[in-house]
């Protein structure tokens, strides 16, 4: 292994969501200021799906984020930026060589990794979760310098550790996926990108003809939540409820299942284009997000006292239905907006 030292001048900034944070930092590296909420909104980070037939850590799979790499790919597409995404490498060594070549050319490179073997990650978060994103920006004697937007400071990883997390197995396995920006024209058409991003998000949240995705999925989950204590017993019901809260509040969401970040995106674009309706939508989204947080706060009492629920599950389910209604109003409003 060559002992040369490469350090790309790359600014690490902490973010709420791993992928939009990485995207925003990569833009920043190219000299274009794009805030995290903007990257998140344009790249359709907002999502909801409830998949009870798939199990993640012994509880139904609930996802508040889109499929891995959506945020990067879509924001590149809508902003018309020249970027490269390599979906998978068959040979792990080839994947690492490609990374080395990139570093030599001075390109900071984003990668999808699994969390379980990530050595610098908080131990309490190390579960089998394969949708995390990191950016590598330097190398020194076989040790890689990593910017992980969930962490406060840049971190380091050895060659073997990096190889291991890049080839984590399981659902949504990363398979060595990597991405980077090639070049950017200085003038980006942000307005049309925002329009495209909002349209796609609205489609995904209320128009998908499948009952488990978006607002419909939220209502379906509320219906199931009511049945859990009778069907599964109090212990398991509280564990399942805990899964909803873990997914919405933990794992670097910025709180309330990304609703705050999306609200910030609507506010920022509303201010940029002087659009009153967008600002109203952002206010509604912020209120829905606060309601989400309240739901988490009340629900956590049931998780604390597991065998005897402190709060009624029916009440929690009604709260979820109310949130679904609040969110649906926002999306319907956004659907009619003309920019």
């Amino acid at each position, binding site marked *: 292994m060559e002992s040369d030292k490469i350090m790309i001048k790359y600014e690490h900034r*902490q*973010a*709420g969501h791993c992928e939009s944070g990485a995207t925003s930092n990569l833009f920043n590296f190219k000299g274009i200021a794009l805030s995290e*909420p903007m990257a998140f909104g344009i790249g359709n980070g907002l999502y909801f799906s409830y998949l009870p037939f798939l*199990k993640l*850590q*012994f509880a139904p799979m609930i996802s508040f984020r889109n499929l891995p790499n959506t945020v990067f790919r879509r924001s590149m597409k809508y902003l018309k930026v020249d970027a490269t995404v390599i979906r998978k490498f068959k040979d792990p060594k080839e994947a690492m060589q490609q990374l080395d070549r990139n570093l030599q050319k001075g390109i900071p490179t984003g990668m999808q990794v699994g969390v*379980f*073997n990530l050595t610098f990650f*908080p131990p*309490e*978060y190390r*579960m*089998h979760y394969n949708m995390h994103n990191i950016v590598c920006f330097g190398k020194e004697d076989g040790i890689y310098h990593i910017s992980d937007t*969930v*962490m*406060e400071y840049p971190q380091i990883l050895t060659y073997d550790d990096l190889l*291991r997390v890049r080839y984590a*197995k*399981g*659902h949504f*396995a990363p398979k060595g996926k990597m991405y980077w920006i090639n070049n950017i024209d200085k003038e980006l058409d942000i307005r049309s990108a925002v329009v495209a991003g909002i349209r796609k998000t609205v489609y995904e949240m209320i128009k998908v003809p499948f009952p488990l995705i978006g607002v419909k999925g939220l209502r379906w989950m509320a219906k199931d939540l009511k049945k859990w204590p009778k069907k599964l017993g109090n212990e398991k019901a*509280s*564990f399942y409820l*805990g899964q909803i*809260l*873990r997914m919405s*509040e*933990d794992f*670097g969401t*910025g*709180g309330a299942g990304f609703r*705050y*970040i999306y*609200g*910030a995106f609507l*506010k920022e674009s509303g201010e940029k284009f002087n659009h009153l309706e967008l600002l109203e939508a*952002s*206010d509604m989204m*912020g*209120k829905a*997000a*606060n*309601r989400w*947080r*309240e739901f*988490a*706060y009340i*629900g*956590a009492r049931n*998780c*604390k006292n*597991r065998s005897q629920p402190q709060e009624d599950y029916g009440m929690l389910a009604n709260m979820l239905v109310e949130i679904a209604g609040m969110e649906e109003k926002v999306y319907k409003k956004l659907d009619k907006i003309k920019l």
Partner: protein
Amino acid sequence: METNSDPVYTDKRHGQYRELFYNYDKTGQFEKSVGFHGETDRVTLQQAWDLFHERIEEARGKVHAGKVSPIVYYMEKNLVDPLNLSMLAGISLWKVKRHFKPRVFKRLSEKTLKKYAEAFNISIEELKNVE
């Protein structure tokens, strides 16, 4: 309703790592703040880890009683279910389930044991013995 019901914790007791949180306050501003994770996060994470530890201890007891093979213990320790284990080790699901029997586990070839050992990131010796 617009109050911030989950304040950002600045006390280190709540975890060693600081994260970025967004908030929506009364004046209609989305605020960014950096802090340790709050009550809700801690309770739900604790709940998950309690369950995992319970399962690990149960598996350890069963291995020592000779009811199941050590693979079950290491599977629980790595927080996976049989389906994920079969993906991790590259062995088909029905075989993995069969290897849970101590009688079958004793006769496993070095090659298969090595596959499991690599999946769990331990040596073959460790795989055979549960502390």
